[in-house]
């Protein structure tokens, strides 16, 4: 009796889950009302273009609140690689490598403080990396990279909103997002407090990408 009702409940649950999953799948497909389903578009080398970061015209800014005022800085050194196929976002990739020690807030003392072990610990973690193995259309049809950010040795899922605009040499990638520094353990000891240095770190990026041949 007990076994039977448990089995019945499990069966019902499975059916419900399957129904929910299929309706979700339908809902997901609806906005992308394209005749060619995604599975049919297998990645072909010809349609996927490779892009690398141009020598100039790039910026990666960050901003955070300190003592109720906005403190801003940039990373001077970072590199970006993108493989992009407009028709096959799932096969597109994005890789950004940031030299964390290249940060510049306009004040040497603040830069040095940010590099200390209690904050970004650039001696131990000289680079931060964002790796996305696919792109996707997020809420509202906006393009997003679906990937993971590794910062200060902590890796977390991060969807990175981006806008890609064609340029003479390739593409211009722009966007902004907000991450929380404590998610990546940036802030040990007294710096764990977010009262005087905020948790939210706004990132703003603009990258000139050159099509590789």
């Amino acid at each position: 009796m007990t076994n039977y009702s448990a089995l019945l409940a499990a069966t019902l649950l499975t059916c419900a889950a399957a129904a929910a999953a299929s309706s979700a799948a339908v809902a997901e497909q609806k906005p992308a009302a394209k005749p060619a389903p995604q599975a049919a578009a297998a990645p072909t080398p010809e349609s996927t273009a490779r892009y690398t970061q141009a020598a100039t015209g790039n910026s990666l800014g960050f901003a955070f609140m300190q003592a109720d005022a906005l403190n801003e800085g940039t990373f001077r050194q970072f590199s970006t690689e993108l493989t992009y196929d407009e028709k096959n976002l799932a096969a597109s990739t994005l890789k950004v490598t940031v030299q964390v020690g290249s940060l510049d807030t306009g004040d040497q003392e603040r830069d040095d403080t940010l590099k200390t072990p209690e904050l970004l610990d650039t001696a131990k973690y000289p680079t931060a990396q964002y790796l996305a193995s696919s792109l996707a259309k997020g809420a509202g049809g906006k393009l997003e990279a679906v990937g993971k950010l590794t910062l200060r040795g902590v890796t977390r899922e991060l969807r990175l909103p981006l806008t890609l605009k064609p340029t003479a040499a390739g593409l211009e990638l722009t966007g902004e997002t907000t991450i929380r520094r404590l998610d990546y353990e940036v802030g040990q000891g007294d710096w764990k407090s977010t009262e005087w240095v905020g948790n939210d770190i706004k990132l703003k990026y603009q990258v000139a990408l050159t099509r590789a041949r």
Partner: protein
Amino acid sequence: MSFRNTTRSWGFLSKAFHWVIVLMILNQWIIAERAESLPKGPALIQALWWHKSFGITILVLAILRLLWRWMNPVPDLGAETRPWERVLAKISHVLLYALIFAMPLSGWMMSSARNFPVSWFGWIQLPDLVGRDPQLYELLKDLHGTLFAVLVSVAALHVAGALKHHFIDRNDVLRRMLPFGRVK
């Protein structure tokens, strides 16, 4: 005590400006000394937040105080005051007024030169007065300290003058600025 000044005594508002600014400057001194001893960290950021917020408050009070002075009679030093005393009093008063502007302004510029925007008690973020400039910052930092040394010296002279009026000349000059002082 009237709200406005009379030709014989300071009114309530002038006294309030004087004593509130005195207390705030002493408080600024204490916070600055404490900040000097703190390592880099949230506690230092907090101390500087107070120092900057009070500094901007002093600047606002200085503006209002000067406007109020122009809108009111200034009590005279009295007929028995000698010319050299008048000159000395005038110089020190002009300096003290100048310093309650120069101290906060140089401090604000210090923050701007290091690319640390100033917030006034978290209510508003103030615009930067100068662009980022590490050399200018060093100059302003020295200036801020020097101006404070001048402020302490002139304030000491100011107090000495007031005490002389009270204990040696035995006139109303000190009493008329005291919070509950009565003028005969």
